[in-house]
């Protein structure tokens, strides 16, 4: 059988798109045609304009945008002269990695819990959906300058500050002096569990909808063969949601790095709105996007090595 396949492969390549395959290629284009249309009509021009601006000195006259080509000077300024950009960048990137891992682990764990059968499951799921609403759009902006809420939160925090379990644990572990660095990271995640819980609402829902698509007959078969729950988690659940893992990983990174309260994004915004340096701001934005894209590319390359797709035969 295997030899047959090998022989057939070169032939296929000669006539790559013939017969059914040609029809399928056309159908494929039909299916994605709305996206192509939208990309060409709406996105392509603004995107390239912004890229072009990053190589220009932009001056806003009365209703006229004056662009002068200055080559790489904006990029040079962003990295060599600008006092904050590089510092912000080196601050944000390790944070991004730490938080993304924390969010993915947390949301996978929670979605496993929420996919089990228990009383009031619908209600609990609704609670975990709330952060999606509370951290979106205009509400996020309002939350940031709501000092009354911050005041109440402070009052509650000082009231419970004396019964901090993690602080005691942290002290014990740190005096033990082993692997302090790793503990610090773990404790940073634990201390910011609220941020992580609110940032993982989307990921939890995506994971749940992935978990829902696993056929229960697979678990039954595994159970009959004497598989423990722990084994079937790693041998069935994990591979079956691995494709969803990839989406969540990419989304988490993008969400964290493109949030408007992120240091780099704030810097880009300040340069744009306060200093009115369109060119410099575009240059900063494009280098930032490029760095994030490269990071996503490298990590998703490694993740996709272990991703299991059902359509590959």
């Amino acid at each position, binding site marked *: 059988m295997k030899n047959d396949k090998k022989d057939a492969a070169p032939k296929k390549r000669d006539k790559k798109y013939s017969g059914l395959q040609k029809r399928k290629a056309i159908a494929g284009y039909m299916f994605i045609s709305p996206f192509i249309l939208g990309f060409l009509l709406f996105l392509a021009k603004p995107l390239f304009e912004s890229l072009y601006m990053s190589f220009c000195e932009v001056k806003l006259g009365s209703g006229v945008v004056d662009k002068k080509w200055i080559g790489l000077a904006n990029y040079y300024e962003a990295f060599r002269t600008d006092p904050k950009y590089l510092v912000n960048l080196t601050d944000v990137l390790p944070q991004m990695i730490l938080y993304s891992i924390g969010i993915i682990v947390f949301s996978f764990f929670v979605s496993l819990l929420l996919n089990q059968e228990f009383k009031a499951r*619908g209600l609990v799921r609704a609670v975990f959906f709330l952060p999606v609403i509370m951290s979106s759009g205009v509400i996020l902006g309002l939350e940031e300058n709501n000092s009354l809420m911050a005041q109440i939160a402070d009052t509650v925090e000082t009231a419970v500050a004396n019964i901090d379990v993690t602080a005691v644990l942290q002290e014990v572990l740190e005096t033990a002096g082993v692997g302090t660095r790793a503990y610090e990271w773990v404790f940073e995640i634990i201390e910011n569990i609220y941020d992580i819980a609110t940032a993982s609402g989307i990921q939890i829902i995506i994971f749940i909808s992935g978990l829902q698509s696993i056929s229960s007959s697979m678990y039954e078969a595994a159970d009959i063969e004497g598989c423990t729950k722990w084994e079937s988690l790693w041998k069935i659940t994990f591979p079956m949601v691995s494709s969803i893992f990839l989406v969540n990983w990419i989304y988490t990174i993008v969400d964290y790095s493109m949030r408007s309260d992120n240091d780099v994004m704030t810097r880009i915004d300040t340069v744009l709105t306060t200093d009115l340096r369109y060119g410099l701001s575009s240059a900063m934005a494009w280098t930032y996007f490029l760095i994030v894209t490269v990071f996503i590319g490298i990590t998703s390359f490694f993740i996709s090595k272990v991703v299991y797709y*059902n359509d590959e035969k």
Partner: protein
Amino acid sequence: MTKSKEVKLKKYGTYWERNAASGGYLLRHDVGQVMIKIIRFVLLFGLCFLILEPIFNKISVSFMDQKDLYNPIVVSIPIHFTGKNYQVAASIMNYKESLKNSIIISLTIAILQTTMCTIVGYGFSRFKFPLKNLWFACVMALIIVPPQAFSSSLVLHFNNYDILGIIKMIKGAPINLRGSVLPYYLMSATCMGLKNGLYIYLVRQFFRNIPIDLEEAAYIDGCGMFKTFIRIMVPQSKPIITSCFLFALVWQWTDGFYSKLFIGGKELVSTSLATIADSLGVYVARELGMVNAQTNVSTQYTNCIMSTGTLLIVFPIVLVYLVAQKAFVESISSTGIKM
């Protein structure tokens, strides 16, 4: 005791007899189950509290009278219980009108975006065609680049909208598409709306995990490609389509960015919530009898009205979620697929 239980008791003996017969396995198993339940309860309770605490604070503040806000003794439970904040917030936000607008726009946009993204995602997941990777790179670009990054270009783009100079040739000048809802619907229909790249990618990954056998069977039976998609694939992907729909609805519901850019004329709950602090000043001045003036309102009161407004905008979406989540419970096993 019911009859079946009696029969069972006669046949197998009491719990402890059964436990002894199983060599202690039964007891260990049951204790383990109870332990799992307790741990799960504690964990979920804690996490739910973590998420709900700020919302509980908002609810308690929203029922406070102004006097309570300045009273340092009052933290969570109001002394002077009042529902007036809701009246004020609703009338400032023009709640009835903006709710109606928001429901119409959010629902239509969410349905449009979900449908188009499902179609495009399916196209990317199942078909091989030339330049596929290039187009998928464009999807990734759509995911990564935030809309703020090209907003200024987009505004200029829509102010003088033109496709390769064709419109200029016909009408003499490029047309202004801003201020009407049409361009936003066009963008949604072509998957360029808010976070649409994510939906496409999500749907693609989901479809790639569904066995291809069913579709092949449909093709062999003479079902066309689009019909196969509608009849075979869509019913299987209910959970993912529901999540996409919910995301689209929520993000559209609370979105201030595209709404300000395109739907400036109509009052939406999101845009009126964004300006609630300023509108409050005008409202209080009008209540005091001053026309066209803005008084200073205390920070506490402003924040209180803000919280009330936030609750008003969150509440309808939670209702929608409670209805929609039934789709999550129906798992794929009910559609009869054996992998």
